[in-house]
């Protein structure tokens, strides 16, 4: 039986680029089919019915039709436009960081509803607390988990012994934590403090709401950010483009808070 010419899906718009005279090429992550790249015909015209529905960080219900190489977007019904994220520079920066990682880790024609739900939940958490860093740490760790890349946090990846309290090391390429006795050669290894290990386990176990009231000092926050960002970047196999602007925004916000 031939595939149907039209279909519907629920998706989150990740990025858009111009195509031809008045079209847009939209990349969005759907619950049903994973990442989809599709053409929105005439969407750059101000009177197009699609205008405003295809901005990045918009969750919607898409009516699609199949094309030869790319599919076409016929209609979009907005479910959540995350308007409060879009009216705050810190929120936009964090939202686009999430969108870049979903774009990087999501695969075409490969449904991953857990990743879709994670992205939507994270954007909701950013919308509720645009200044908090926890939604991003939660997203990074759970992104690895739903992609099958969750680092080992309970046993040494070299000797398989349970980790005991103390200073540990971490290796993204070996897939997790190393005990104080194991020191494999020719591998990038970084130190991992006990408080950081405990917070990583908490992030992995708990719902995001449990993390939000957690207060950590600047040193630990920086260690966690560098660690989770490093693991994600390692698996992405490229630099995260939106990270430098995100870091700049965070430095400026911190400067405002402490001066």
């Amino acid at each position, binding site marked *: 039986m031939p595939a149907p010419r039209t279909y519907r899906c629920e998706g989150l718009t990740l990025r858009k680029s111009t195509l031809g005279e008045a079209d847009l090429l939209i990349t969005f992550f759907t619950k049903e089919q994973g990442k989809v790249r599709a053409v929105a015909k005439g969407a750059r015209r101000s009177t197009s019915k699609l205008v405003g529905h295809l901005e990045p960080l918009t969750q919607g219900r898409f009516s699609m039709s199949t094309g030869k190489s790319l599919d076409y977007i016929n209609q979009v019904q907005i479910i959540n436009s995350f308007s409060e994220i879009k009216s705050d520079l810190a929120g936009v920066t964090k939202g686009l960081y999430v969108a*870049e990682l979903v774009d990087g880790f999501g695969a075409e024609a490969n449904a991953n509803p857990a990743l879709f739900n994670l992205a939507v939940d994270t954007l909701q958490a950013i919308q509720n607390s645009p200044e908090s860093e926890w939604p991003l740490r939660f997203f990074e760790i759970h992104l690895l988990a739903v992609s099958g890349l969750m680092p080992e946090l309970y046993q040494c990846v070299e000797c398989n012994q349970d980790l005991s309290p103390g200073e540990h090391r971490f290796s993204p390429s070996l897939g997790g934590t190393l005990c104080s006795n194991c020191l494999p050669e020719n591998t990038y290894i970084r130190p991992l403090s006990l408080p950081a290990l405990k917070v990583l386990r908490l992030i992995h176990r708990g719902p995001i709401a449990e993390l939000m009231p957690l207060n950590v000092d600047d040193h630990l926050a920086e260690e966690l950010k560098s660690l989770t960002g490093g693991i994600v970047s390692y698996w992405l196999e490229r630099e995260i483009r939106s990270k430098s602007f995100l870091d700049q925004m965070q430095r400026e916000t911190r400067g405002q808070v402490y001066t």
Partner: protein
Amino acid sequence: MTNDPLPSAAPSLARLIQELNKLPGIGPKSAQRLAYYIIRLPKEEAFALADAVNAVKHNIIFCNGCQNLSDATPCSICADPRRNQDSLCVVEDPLDVLALERTRCFRGLYHVLHGAISPINGIGPDQLKLKELFARLSENDFSEMVIATNPTLEGEATAMYIRRHLPNNTIKVTHLARGLPVGGSLEYTDDMTLSRAFQGRQEL
């Protein structure tokens, strides 16, 4: 094999096809069609095209004031004494200046950013003409700055960035109204546009 546009073509023709193929939106087949069209053109028309490309690459510079593309600095708008020197309009692209000039609504000066902040594409503030904007705002005594970036996520982020980094707070900062396009329809308007149109409603 794929790098050779047309193995049997004369070297000069193959080179033309290869160069045309580098243009955005021009694939190998379109490049071949354009190359054969140029060959069939009368000599003077083909040379006029080559001269135009040559002249644009030699003469076009950034205006020191507005950063727009121009063949002189200051450009004709910055050098015009009849323009309102107190008002500055910030736009993303040179084409936006043309669009605003067509309306004849604004008689002040412009500043062209040459893009918008787009972290996901690796475009940050340093890639735009923002340093030049802030320097211009420090050196000049503008009474109003109209931020006319596109009403997109990137355009709004750029506007928010400019607002946050203004060197002085005495300037009045405005941005273009958001709302319904002429010829549009309420039924198909997205929630954000409709709510902003409602907020910006005017007395009849």
